[in-house]
């Protein structure tokens, strides 16, 4: 089961992605194996209910978090920091490690819109546990990261929701389907 945690506004990603209000987190089904957390969700509520997400990870789940993590929403969650520079010329996306979710995505297509940079991210996660993989950087900041935590897989995007690129009109549209494929790749 794939679940998208929302802040109350419906977001239609794909027919098999169930939507769950962040305030109904406690009822998360044990069958959920891929959990997507949207950028608008209440991080105080997530922090207070950290045991739910820790338990999800302990079951071997895959967690994707968009937005800036500013509260420990799961045990050992890295904290977002703004990049050392957020000037327009410094906010292009630099690929670091190839990753299935970004396969075929032209970095130029996520670096700017109409010549303006900064939509993709303006910071990232400077302090990461050993073994974390930095996928993309914005200036000095690890904006996309994959790590292991509490027995599960975690993918962090330190910017607006990755699924917001699903109608971008360029190669960035590959991100959502590739995210759902990567998140379910070991399912039988």
């Amino acid at each position, binding site marked *: 089961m794939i679940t998208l945690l929302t802040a*109350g506004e419906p977001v239609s990603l794909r027919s098999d992605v169930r939507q769950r209000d962040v305030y109904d987190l406690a009822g998360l089904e044990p069958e959920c194996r891929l959990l997507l957390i949207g950028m608008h969700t*209440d*991080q105080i509520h997530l922090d207070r209910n950290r045991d739910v997400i820790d338990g999800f990870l302990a079951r071997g789940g895959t967690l994707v978090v968009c*937005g800036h993590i*500013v*509260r420990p929403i799961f045990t050992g969650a890295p904290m977002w920091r703004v990049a050392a520079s*957020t000037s327009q010329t410094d906010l292009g996306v630099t690929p670091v490690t190839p990753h299935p979710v970004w396969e075929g995505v032209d970095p130029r297509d996520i670096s700017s819109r*109409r010549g303006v940079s900064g939509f993709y991210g303006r910071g990232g996660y400077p302090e990461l546990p050993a073994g974390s993989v930095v996928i993309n950087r914005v200036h000095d900041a690890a904006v996309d990261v994959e790590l292991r935590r509490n027995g599960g897989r975690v993918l962090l995007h330190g910017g*607006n929701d990755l699924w917001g690129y699903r109608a971008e009109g360029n190669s960035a549209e590959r991100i959502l389907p590739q995210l759902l494929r990567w998140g379910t790749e070991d399912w039988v």
Partner: protein
Amino acid sequence: MTESFNRREVAFLHDGAFYQLASIEDLLSEGYPIRPVYLPDLLEGRESLDGVERLLVADRLHPRLWASAGPACVDVARRGGTVFLSGENSLEAVPGFTLTPTATNFWWWVSGEDPGIVINDSSDPLQQYLTPRAQRWHFHGVLHTPPHAAILTEHRDQGPEWSAGALLAVDRQTTAGVLAVTTMDPVYHHGSRFMPGASLLLRGAVEWLAADASPDAPDHGTSTPNTARG
């Protein structure tokens, strides 16, 4: 937990989104007298608006939670307080105001086109805290206001996607206090570290609230903006 608020203290209603938490952290570190009020705790009685005289409602609150809390927030103005309501929230609880969502023009400053945003030269104290840049960036809807409301910023009609209406208005007559309403979302953009104009609007609104804009205040309408900040 209920405790009385200081005279100049501004309650900042939020629901834990990262950009709200970042804005709160910034404002506190810059010395603004805000007190965060966490919306879920308010609804469960662990927080209270009793005694609150100045209230800033953050933009983009959870729709169901905001629907439950809206009337209590408007009550702050009904008992003589001052409320600044940020955009992307329903106006169901706000008397006399209606909202028409519009498309959003993020690009006028790149393309060089006229965004059709008109800043009126009002004498309203709130506007003394806002530079033109604080009021002209983008918006997500237009307001239809009570006839007596002061319209500080408005949008000229530019076709079906861009209807005319107010973007920032202040109503000092419907309630005993003051209701300021905008369709701009400064907390989201400031807390996302994204848009300088949004940061100016946020700081200006907090300065106005903290400086005392309530109708019964001795310096109502004559307070001097603190231009040292922002």
